[in-house]
């Protein structure tokens, strides 16, 4: 199929088409002075001048809080009923190429030793429409983790902005092609000239192979480097919540003593209670040890287990961190 054009005046048509067919259209829009991914019903709500949305779109496949079961406590025992996910077409418009690749990282985890249907059913109906970057900021480091604004992996549709504000549409997957077919009235034929993409400079002092190799060597575990570089971490967990690949959750029950719901809530390795044992012992006693885990997860555990990336270089964790703990500074240290 030849490339299509999505004219800016047809964006509204696309939003309406998705909504009319019972789907959700998620796009960057303004909320409390921030650009965030959220449901939109009109093209006017969509922001086009942004670097990345504050939140990752993971919340549409892995909600921050969701009921997984209902329970009642009866005389004979506990009656537990699982909830079914009813996923509908969910379109994420305006993802960036780095974060588009993060879906395969989430999939790796949620289908690894157990198929988590709460995730897989949502992913099956998710369409990722990436808009390639024409702007970056100093926190962006996709090129350092071997991705770039030209990366197409993970995108169902890959869009290039044109000088006139339209989009050149490249359908990358069957899902993407089916999407264009389903909403074909919004797309047109034609040719246009794309804007030049930005290319964040690769941080030359970082060598991912070296980082992984050093982390594999257990000797680093008690290295003073962790304390030195990361003891400033206050353990707020904000980095993990905005990170497109962080995926930890906790199960909690809410309700009365006799009935209630079981929820799956985001959790984070940055919290002290994450590894707190019932005995009171905590194997990650200090905050820098918790931070070490986050880094290990991304640059040792992930590459060791899966083909997908633990970190896609979106820089969200750097932007959001109240103490400006920059993950690339630690990557640099471990590249030595």
């Amino acid at each position, binding site marked *: 199929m030849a490339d299509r054009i999505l004219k800016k005046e047809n964006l509204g048509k696309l939003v309406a088409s998705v909504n009319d067919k019972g789907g959700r259209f998620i796009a960057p829009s303004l909320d409390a002075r921030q650009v965030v991914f959220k449901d939109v019903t009109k093209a006017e709500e969509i922001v086009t001048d942004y670097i990345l949305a*504050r939140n990752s779109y993971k919340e549409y496949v892995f909600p921050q809080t969701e009921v997984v079961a209902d329970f009642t406590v009866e005389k004979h025992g506990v009656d537990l009923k699982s909830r079914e996910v009813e996923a509908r077409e969910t379109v994420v418009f305006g993802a960036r190429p780095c974060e588009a690749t993060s879906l395969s990282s989430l999939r790796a985890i949620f289908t690894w030793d157990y198929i988590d249907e709460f995730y897989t059913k949502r992913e099956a109906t998710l369409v990722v429409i990436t808009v390639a970057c024409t702007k970056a900021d100093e926190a962006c480091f996709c090129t350092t983790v071997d991705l770039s604004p030209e990366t197409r992996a993970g995108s169902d549709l890959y869009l290039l902005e044109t000088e006139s504000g339209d989009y050149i549409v490249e359908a990358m997957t069957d899902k993407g092609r089916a999407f264009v077919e389903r909403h074909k009235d919004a797309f047109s034929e034609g040719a246009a000239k794309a804007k030049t993409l930005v290319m964040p400079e690769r941080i030359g002092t970082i060598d991912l192979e070296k980082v992984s190799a050093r982390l594999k060597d257990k000797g680093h575990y008690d290295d003073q480097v962790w304390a*030195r570089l990361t003891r400033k971490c206050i*353990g707020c967990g904000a980095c993990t919540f*905005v990170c497109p690949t962080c995926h930890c959750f906790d199960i*909690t029950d809410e309700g009365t003593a006799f009935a209630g719901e079981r929820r799956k809530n985001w959790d984070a390795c940055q919290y002290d*209670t994450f590894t707190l044992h019932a005995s009171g012992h905590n194997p990650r006693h200090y905050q*820098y040890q918790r931070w070490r885990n986050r880094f290990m997860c991304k640059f040792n555990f992930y590459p060791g287990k899966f083909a997908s990336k633990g970190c896609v270089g979106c820089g969200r964790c750097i932007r959001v961190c109240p103490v*400006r703990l920059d993950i690339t500074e630690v990557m640099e240290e471990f590249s030595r």
Partner: protein
Amino acid sequence: MEEILRKKAKELLESGEVKVVIGYGWNRQKTRTSPVFITDAADSDRLVWNPLCVNNLSVYLTRKFKDIQALGKPAIVAKGCDIRNIVVLITEAQFKREDVYIIGMACEGVVYRQELWKGELKPEIMPTKCHNCDVRNPHLADFVVGGKSSFTPPEAPTGMVFDKIKAIDAMGQTGKWAFWINEFSRCIKCYACRQVCSLCYCERCITEKNMPQWIETSAHPRGNLSWNLTRAMHLVGRCTFCGECERACPVNIPLNLVNQKMIQVVKDSFDFRSGYDEKTHPPMIVFSPDDKDDFIK
């Protein structure tokens, strides 16, 4: 000022008077400041001082940071407003005055958020606290860096936070409720507000008490409301309006409004402002026979 600061830090570490200097340093690109912990006198030159030094480093003096406490006696680089938090920590017996060496920084204000910095400190990028600051000359310090500031705060407090509070007060009960429910609905329960606050130093926050679960951990409207209200109540008469919680909140919940409102209530009811005198206990923890309310007598 930076030179004097570095020299002092070096001196303190060399003499062994302190074991660590908690201060500000640059990030790699030298575009943002970030906390640094200097333990080796030779590293003292990493310390910086400029209007990007927004963080309230007093959080690192609390028992949340056992690894920092284990280093030994700290010196801390602190602005007047940060010193107010240190004062509260002392009045709440978290440590003694002599347990910390305070390097007070004479201050002409900071940026509200570092990303607003364009090379110049203009009034419109400064937080409300700076426009009304009466501690630009550090009120409690072992050593002061910088000349005396001649700034006098305005008679009637000015700035966005005060304007906004007036507007919310005028909304009436239902309006106020709707305003806050909407703001809190964005909360993602990351607890950044708590973690960044030097006065939230509980070893086990009430949110983490789960037998029973006092506060629902889910980020749904009910859970968010109970979390945000509980946290606010726990800071009454203590919060100094340093603004760290609002700065840290990743979803821009205007926590400064909550805090300043509580400060006004405490001022009106108890004629007390936290963080000025390390010898006066906060009103919520003292019993006074001449309390102006008589319900307790």
